[in-house]
């Protein structure tokens, strides 16, 4: 089952089955809902900033979707903890892709990027940081 192991690495399945940062924040400082119109996958992101109002103190997400979208969002919540909003707004997608560590077809790339895009939209709404332009397939991200 080598080819399946390559795509569905243990770490992906672990994040999918035991997502980190799963849940919601009642008084989030930043929040956005993202949807992948291709497959109907949904992710909502909630961010709380630290006392400086800039550093990400806590990130939660809720939603439903495939293993790739949910695991990638779970990994993302760990990755951005303690980083500044302005840094995360320009976080390169390759940094997340490296963490995911599996080859992705164009369709599945959109799954993998759903959480990151939604997070950037949340930060944009709260802090006016740049919107994620040029992320493949997310021109039609539904802003809420």
């Amino acid at each position, binding site marked *: *089952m080598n080819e399946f192991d390559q795509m*569905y690495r243990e770490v992906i399945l672990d994040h999918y089955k035991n997502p980190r940062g799963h849940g919601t924040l009642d008084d989030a400082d930043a929040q956005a809902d993202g949807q992948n119109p291709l*497959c109907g996958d949904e992710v909502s992101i909630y961010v709380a900033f630290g006392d400086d109002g800039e550093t990400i103190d806590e990130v939660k997400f809720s939603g439903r*979707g*495939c*293993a*790739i979208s949910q695991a990638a969002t779970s990994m993302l919540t760990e990755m951005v903890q303690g980083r500044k909003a302005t840094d995360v707004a320009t976080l390169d997608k390759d940094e997340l892709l490296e963490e995911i560590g599996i080859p992705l077809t164009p369709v*599945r790339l959109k799954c993998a990027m759903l959480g990151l895009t939604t997070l950037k939209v949340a930060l944009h709404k709260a802090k006016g940081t740049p919107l994620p332009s040029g992320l493949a397939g997310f021109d039609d991200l539904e802003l809420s």
Partner: protein
Amino acid sequence: MAVTADSKTFNAHAIRADFPIFEQLIHGKPLAFLDSAASSQKPRQMMEAMTTFYETSYANVHRGVYVLAERATAALEGSREKVRALVNAPDAREIIFVRNATEAINLVAYAWGMSNLGPGDIVIVSELEHHSNFVPWQYVAGRTGAQMRMLPLTEEGELDLSALDALAAGGNVKVVATNQVSNSIGTINPIEKLVAWAHEHGAIFVCDAAQSAPHLAIDVQALGVDFLAISGHKLCGPSGIGALWGRGELLLAMEPFLTGGHMISSVRLEKTTWGELPHKFEAGTAPMAEAVGLAAAIDYLQAVGLDAIAAHEHELAEYALGRLGELPGITLYGPPADRRAGIVSFNVEGIHPHDVAQILDMQGVAIRAGHHCCQPLMQKLGVAATNRASFYLYTVREEIDQLVEGLHTVQKVFA
């Protein structure tokens, strides 16, 4: 036309040999193509007909006075006649070539709807609709002030006709629009009953036959519908061509949809007058080679026999429902086998359809995962997406076995 099998000796393995796509391995495995509801594969005979047309008879149609233009015109009009016969329309002039069923329905929604719908009018579509028969009506209803109402489904995924009368309350029903076969869960709808109800209320009935024309014999006169839309690519024809059939008197009374070349009678600075049917609705250069391919595809299907194809798919659906039922954690959607076409929609407990389809692809099995352009239906079923396996004349039981074996692997990966 030389077809490897005919209705008396229906043999899907022999038919398969006419489809070159199967002469390859996918990820080192035989191709199990279970996504014909999205688009069908193509027989060699269809592609050869298009090539021959390009090589021997190609020129623009209708106005040329030379041999090639005459050949091309004869080919285009010959194809129109094939489509007429396919749906048993009274007159070939009622057959309008379009790009696909979506365009056919847009043509009706705009060219009929914009002139005939207004405040107080009701358009009824069903919860089973593909976006192709939902969004155009929603949009034109919004533009005209008409109201769109949804015909609900029963628990078994069939249209709940008992809800119709309540939907007519407080307005004038002008349009009832449903598909004949659901692309998403395979339900075969009772078109005659829906038509009778629509006509009792003075409404027109628009039938989306994109998913039925490839699989069942259609007779627009027996069904009693007013408009019927088909897509060529789903019935072994090329992409880029479909057809609308409309009742002659309705088409004659309608304004055009697209305007420009070919669809005119005369063009003056002060006023342009429209051409005769079908030309009034066929602006621009026609999809000529595609029409030739469509005609060859229709010949192919009729040589095999649409009744034989329907029976074959019905057997496959029954077999697939049985085999999938053997697996743990499978939810099946849609009506029982005797009331559905060759489409099986399902979910695997705890595993998203994208992941199911991805792992199946690695085993050479192509299925569709997603909302199948039916988001209102997915909402009704309470899911974001489903897996869908769909069958056609070239589908063999071995492909369904390959699917079931693949699903075992999917469950192992996610165990």
